[in-house]
């Protein structure tokens, strides 16, 4: 198939210009150093990048800040030039790199439409033909005759988007703009993107919004430190990326504890960075062997199982992380919070922390280990009036004195702060009620899954004080301390069983078993709706009480 964009072993280096642009005085003062560094100091943004985007394909690029994503886009658009390697593009390019680049505040909307269109490679006649359509799409009405300086920032972006998508590009370059304007307009943008996709436009898209990437893209490249880590199906790449991020964060926070803390995770499950880099197929094989773990392991000890399980469950119920992520997005909270704290039992930490990347500019993490045990034991030393967001995952119900704990969180939350809790709210100590366990047993029997639904108390859970003493108090107490914004329930006893038992006994690589799990989850949703089963899990979003 013909290509739309092709990179062959592309290198890009940036010299450090600040020696010169910082001015003559500082240049002279550090003359020696500067001359040396002028010769040497270079930042290599891309190190031999090769990939091909096929015609009509939607191609995503993900990676941390500074990994080289923007450089790649700049090279495709042609505003910068590579130092080595070959770049070929095939087709008219329109970029949504910065909406409204080149707009002038003193010109009217219409004048800007035409000027912008011409800058992007159209003739005046072409633009005059499209101008009505663009005005209609932008929903600006009579404002279109007013100078741009009278526009709100939302209107500005809407106009920019409208121009960019109406110049009939063959290759569309999108950089993190999927959330422009109000909800209505966002929907329109999404629709337009789908239209582009269907009409065979090649789309190259950079985003931190993994949901959109997964939804839109055919293939995704993951870039890190200027090199390609993986190019595959979106889900595969995103999971690798998330896992990698998780490993990047955890060690630095637990360095001081690492010595005396027993390793909970099996060694094979820890994919080192270099392993991912050098040979991913091998690493995958290694984790696959974990899908039948020994009995001594808890289900969440295997990232592989967890990944599949979480994927299936959230895929079917549309719940938990994805739900609150979507919610926050709609509340325009993405990127608006400064400081967050994530407290989590290991099991859901990975996805959630990655979501935090988008919500908060910076955040602390308390995962497993001594710190968590301390928290459960009642020692919380949160900084006062410091956090904008608390993310509590599978932790509140384990806290012995939840009232004090929530009070501490309240004190630590800044004004207008938010708390999100993903919690078990079922019967205390995971003691499934007689009725629930009977129903669950019937269903499992019907599906021919040989698992006892008798409630069992896991001795390891009790011994490390992670029993769910306060599960039924979570929602009432949260209501007392915070203003509840939303509660979303996402599973009952079956979900619980699924997570704690079933995945041990089923081969998760077998497509049939995956189907079974889907059926169980769906069935449970129906039973909960009919009030035959109770909710055991909930996502609670709450805000700091405003009357203080």
């Amino acid at each position, binding site marked *: 198939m013909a290509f739309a964009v092709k990179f062959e072993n592309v290198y890009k280096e*940036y010299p450090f210009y600040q020696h*010169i642009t910082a001015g003559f005085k500082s240049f002279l003062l550090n003359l020696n150093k500067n001359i040396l560094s002028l010769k040497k100091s270079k930042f290599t943004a891309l190190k031999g990048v090769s990939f091909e985007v096929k015609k009509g394909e939607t191609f995503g690029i993900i990676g941390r800040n500074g990994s080289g994503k923007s450089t790649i886009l700049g090279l495709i658009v042609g*505003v910068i030039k590579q130092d080595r390697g070959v770049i070929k593009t095939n087709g008219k390019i329109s970029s949504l*790199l*910065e909406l409204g680049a080149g707009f002038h505040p003193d010109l009217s909307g219409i*004048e800007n439409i035409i000027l912008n269109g*011409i800058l*992007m*490679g*159209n003739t005046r006649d072409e633009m005059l033909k499209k101008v009505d359509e663009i005005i209609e799409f932008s929903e600006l009405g009579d404002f279109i005759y007013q100078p741009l300086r009278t526009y709100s920032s939302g209107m500005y972006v809407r106009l920019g988007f409208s121009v960019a998508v109406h110049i009939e590009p063959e290759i569309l370059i999108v950089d993190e703009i999927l959330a422009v304007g109000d909800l209505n307009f966002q929907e329109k943008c999404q629709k337009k993107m789908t239209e582009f996709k269907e009409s065979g436009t090649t789309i190259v898209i950079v985003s931190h919004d993994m949901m959109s990437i997964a939804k839109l893209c055919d293939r995704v490249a993951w870039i890190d430190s200027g090199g390609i880590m993986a190019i595959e199906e979106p889900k595969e790449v995103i999971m690798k990326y998330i896992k990698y991020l998780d490993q990047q964060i955890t060690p630095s926070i637990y360095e001081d504890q690492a010595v005396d803390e027993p390793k909970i995770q099996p060694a094979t499950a820890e994919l080192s960075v270099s392993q991912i880099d050098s040979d991913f197929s091998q690493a995958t094989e290694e984790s696959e062997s974990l899908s039948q773990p020994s009995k001594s392991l808890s289900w969440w000890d295997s990232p592989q199982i967890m990944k599949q399980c979480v994927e299936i469950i959230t895929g079917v119920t549309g719940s938990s992380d994805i739900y609150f992520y979507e919610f926050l997005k709609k509340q325009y909270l993405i990127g608006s919070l400064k400081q967050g704290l994530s407290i989590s039992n290991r099991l859901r930490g990975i996805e959630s922390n990655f979501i935090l990347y988008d919500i908060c500019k910076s955040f602390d993490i308390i995962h497993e280990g001594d710190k968590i045990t301390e928290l459960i034991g009642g020692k919380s030393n949160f900084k006062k009036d410091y956090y904008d967001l608390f993310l509590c995952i599978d932790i509140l119900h384990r806290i012995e004195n939840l009232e004090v704990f929530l009070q501490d969180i309240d004190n630590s939350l800044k004004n207008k702060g938010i708390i999100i809790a993903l919690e078990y709210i079922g019967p205390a100590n995971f003691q499934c009620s007689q009725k629930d366990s009977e129903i669950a047993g019937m269903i499992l029997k019907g599906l021919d899954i040989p698992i006892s639904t008798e409630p069992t108390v896991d001795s390891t859970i009790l011994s490390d004080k992670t029993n769910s003493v306060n599960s039924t108090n979570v929602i009432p107490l949260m209501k007392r301390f915070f203003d509840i914004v939303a509660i979303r329930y996402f599973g009952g006893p079956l979900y619980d069983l699924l997570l704690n038992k079933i995945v041990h006994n089923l081969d998760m690589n077998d497509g049939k078993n995956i189907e079974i799990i889907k059926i169980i989850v769906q069935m449970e949703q129906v039973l909960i709706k009919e009030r035959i089963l109770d909710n055991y899990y909930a996502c609670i979003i709450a805000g700091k009480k405003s009357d203080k």
Partner: protein
Amino acid sequence: MGQHSFKYYRDLVISLTQKELKVRYKRSFLGYLWSIANPLALALVFFIAFKIFMKIPIENYTLFLISGLFPWQWFSNSVNTSATVFVINAPLIKKVNFRREVLIIATVLNDMIHFLLSIPVIVLFVYFYGIKPSLLWFVGIPLLLIISFIMTFGFSIAISAINLFFRDMERIVSIFTTLMFYVTPIIYSEDMVPAKYKGLILMNPLSILMVNWRNMFTKGTLDFKDLTYAFIYSLIIATIGYLVFRRLKWRFAEVL
């Protein structure tokens, strides 16, 4: 950079120039009058200083002044605006791929149009002093326009590119144009320059241009030998300027 038709580049230049024209005085009440008011005010100051106080022995001194001052303003404004043109258009440079030189062309054209609009003022003074307009104007104006345009473009494009890497350039340019103004025979005539400096003054490519603009308006004469020199000068300057620009243009998006 992509291949585009001539029609496209024409549209691009026209719309960018239009934008500059619209924007410059869009929010002011007197609008385009300001582009005449400024050089006229300058002319008035020089007239008082040189004609009334210092009694410079030049006839029709007002006409003499403005017929050199107006084309000089074109050059000076263009060069000074160009210095920051890429900086001001940073979002565009960083995100959109188009021929960057078009921005400079539009800037120079914009100032050229302002100059063209001020020619009627010169004509008015020509009538006022009872001088006969010459038919030579119909040849001279287009010729001088082309040469001035090429020369201004050459200076502008080099300065604008260098300024991105060496921001002191814009200050240097503003001092440079002020100095050049005084070593170019605009407020005085080239005959008043002492013989031993005369060669030096005439080596200045801008002198030839300004003197010819003025002579055309005040005397109705054109020195075609001079024009040839000026034309060659302008081509050399434009070539060097463009080469400097071409060497640096790929780094624009990186330093902005």
